[in-house]
């Protein structure tokens, strides 16, 4: 165990300041400071508010991660950091902090891709990744289907959202229904009390779109359909059945996500599906993915909810793989790349 690399990972691509500590393929501790409460009164993540919170939380979070993991910074063999994609100003705080750590400690730096990290985190949860793995990543910032032959240097994009991210659709529909930000947990909770009685549209699943955008997603039409439906009810002076709308909307999203993910597994002959990102915490998505994977003979892997949302453990997990596979470290001059392509695993 002790000969396994001890890697500290830093994640600041959105509103969570995450510091995770991994030894080899074992998670020692995952510390998170979230500024989500500060964003709630704005109805969405405000980049400058997030960046200010990252600066305040950075050192205390590093400190807490080390203390809870029972290690000192002197034990750290490498530092990993999300170098993109994400909010530019937020990423810069983490990247600058990681460089400062690597420089002060005299250890290598690994700038890694946020999306690849979402895939790699399952290594510390369920063991080595089957190669290749198919990954469905869904959050407020991304909705992607990835084919991953090697998470340290070969990640291929099969498709992604052409407009809103899945989590964004949850936030927008929550606003339409008068539910608080962030919308995901509130819609999930409401939906449990409702019935799927409204047939909302499934974007990019019919006609030519189903071929041209076979593995892509679109959620803005769905959001518009929900808001029109609600407005029509209100205009008619009828009460809005919030729970039924939430359940029907959630069904439309999770149906499309799981249907396309299973199709991608079949098309590429992959027997494993991993689901990650904040929306993976949605109970209906987990249940439907399980049901459809079982029916298709595909093995489903979903990390626990705390490792699906953005966190430092995922960055440390990928960093440790980089070290174990002997990948070259990053230069101290790497940028924070807000539009880092998903196919670029490291900086």
């Amino acid at each position, binding site marked *: 165990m002790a000969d396994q690399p001890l890697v500290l990972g830093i994640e600041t691509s959105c509103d969570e300041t995450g510091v995770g500590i991994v030894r080899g393929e074992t998670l020692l501790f995952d510390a998170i400071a979230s500024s989500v409460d500060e964003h709630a009164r*704005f109805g969405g993540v405000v980049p400058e508010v997030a960046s200010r919170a990252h600066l305040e939380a950075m050192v205390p979070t590093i400190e807490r991660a080390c203390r809870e993991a029972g290690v000192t910074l002197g034990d750290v063999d490498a530092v990993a950091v999300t170098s993109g994609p994400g909010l530019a*100003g937020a990423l810069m705080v983490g990247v600058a902090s990681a460089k400062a750590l690597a420089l*002060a400690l005299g250890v290598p730096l690994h700038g890694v891709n946020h999306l690849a990290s979402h895939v790699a985190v399952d290594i510390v949860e369920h063991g080595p990744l089957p190669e290749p793995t198919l990954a469905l990543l869904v959050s407020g910032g991304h909705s992607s289907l990835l084919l991953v032959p090697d998470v340290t240097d070969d990640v291929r994009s099969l498709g992604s959202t052409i407009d809103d991210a899945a989590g964004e659709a949850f936030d927008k529909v929550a606003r339409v229904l008068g539910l608080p930000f962030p919308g995901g947990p509130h819609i999930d909770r409401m939906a449990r009390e409702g019935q799927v009685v409204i047939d909302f549209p499934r974007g990019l699943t019919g006609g030519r779109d189903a071929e041209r955008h076979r593995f892509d997603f679109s959620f803005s039409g769905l959001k518009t359909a929900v808001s029109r439906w609600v407005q029509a009810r209100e205009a008619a002076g009828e009460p809005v059945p919030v729970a039924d709308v939430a359940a029907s909307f959630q069904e439309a999203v999770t149906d499309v996500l799981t249907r396309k993910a299973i199709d991608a597994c079949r098309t590429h002959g992959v027997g494993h599906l991993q689901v990650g990102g904040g929306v993976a915490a949605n109970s209906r998505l987990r249940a439907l993915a399980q049901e459809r994977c079982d029916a298709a003979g595909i093995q489903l892997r979903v990390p626990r909810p705390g490792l699906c949302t953005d966190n430092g453990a995922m960055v440390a997990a990928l960093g440790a793989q980089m070290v174990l596979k002997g990948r070259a470290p990053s230069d101290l001059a790497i940028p924070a790349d807000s539009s880092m392509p998903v196919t670029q695993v490291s900086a």
Partner: protein
Amino acid sequence: MLTLAIDTSTTAIGVAVLAGDAEPVRAVVLDARAHTEHLAPLVADALARAGATPAEVTDIAVGTGPGPFTGLRVGLVTAVTMGYALGVPVHGVGSLDVLAEQAFAATGDDVGEVLVATDARRREVYWARYARTADGARALGEPAVEAPAQVPEHTRMLPTAGRGPLLYPDAFPRPVADVLDVDPAALGAIARRRAAAGVPMPVEPLYLRRPDALTTAERAAR
């Protein structure tokens, strides 16, 4: 004593290493859009040229602004993270204070007061007025962010340090020659002097502006 000084509040991304009484070693790049890329290599370079390792640093000084937010934070987070990792104190110094000291050093004793005006973007400046005293520049009021024309006229006529006069020559007619950006070595010297005098130096960013966003309640009130 081996002081590492960092400032990213002005157009210069500046690092200095002050080892004992030796001449400070500076590493500076003028590039206000690429702090994340430049700063860590500059720190590595300045330490190497001073013949020092990071582990030999005894304290860190950092400019707390005001300055454009994203760049300012790169300097601050670098300083506090290195300070934590090395187990050494980090001292925060107002960046305009440093420019004021540079201005007094560059002018004669007949100049008793100066204005510091730096680029705040959005056609505004960060500014503060300073008096020359026996123990350095003393601020006459809190730093502010305003359009150049908003700065009181008698203040604008003072000898002015920073990029304000370069950007708005009509508003600030009396530039202090060659004092445009924070000199990290001057920053390090102020931090040392204040530390010796027991002055508290919290590392608190001087943003002066609140984030550009309306709360849901504010939007509804519009």
